[in-house]
């Protein structure tokens, strides 16, 4: 299934773009997806410590990715 992923802040700079489509197998968790990302992008060494949102809500790393999910990688926030 094709899963849209959004990148922000330092992650966007590392990836070089704000979003990407990944063709993922079924039944992957967020933790699995993070491993895929670190294999594809050598700069994403810190990603395991970054938060992840699915459809604009924070999720834990055991969340199972589903069709039509929009994933966002959330590096440490620094608003305010």
């Amino acid at each position, binding site marked *: 299934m094709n899963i849209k992923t959004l990148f922000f802040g330092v992650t966007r700079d590392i990836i070089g773009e704000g979003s990407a489509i990944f063709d993922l197998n079924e039944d992957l968790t967020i933790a699995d997806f993070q491993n895929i990302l670190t294999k594809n992008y050598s700069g994403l060494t*810190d990603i395991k410590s970054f938060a992840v949102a699915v459809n604009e809500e924070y999720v834990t790393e055991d969340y199972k990715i589903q069709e039509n999910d929009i994933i966002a990688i959330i590096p440490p926030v620094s*608003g*305010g």
Partner: protein
Amino acid sequence: MKENISIKLTTNKLRLQECIDFVQDNSCGGIATFVGTVRNHTKGKEVKQLEFSAYTSMAIKELQKIAEQALDEFDILKIAIHHAEGLLQIGEVPVIIAVSSVHRGASFKACEYAIDTLKETVPIWKKEYFKDGEVWVNAHP
């Protein structure tokens, strides 16, 4: 959006009086506010300007959650949380929080809760520009 909550994430200049006017209520005895300002230094280095970028749709949801939690948890009347996006110069205002309550203690607590939580949960990122480069704040915790 509820009548007692004002949320904004905007590239326009933030206006304190707008926040005060929103939370002001004839039954309120006091208004606590927090006004963030862009500091001209960080860890000893001179900052030239800042840039805020956001996951806008989610950031607005998270700001709304903070406002609702503040209304649930503290005895307050109204709350406004306005945050800037884009480039800001030294002295400009990235964030304004205003809270009204009948008794002032609740406003202070809610205002501090809101800014503390905003800095932890809302997907907004700050980039600091120095003379010799730029860096995402907190990017490597």
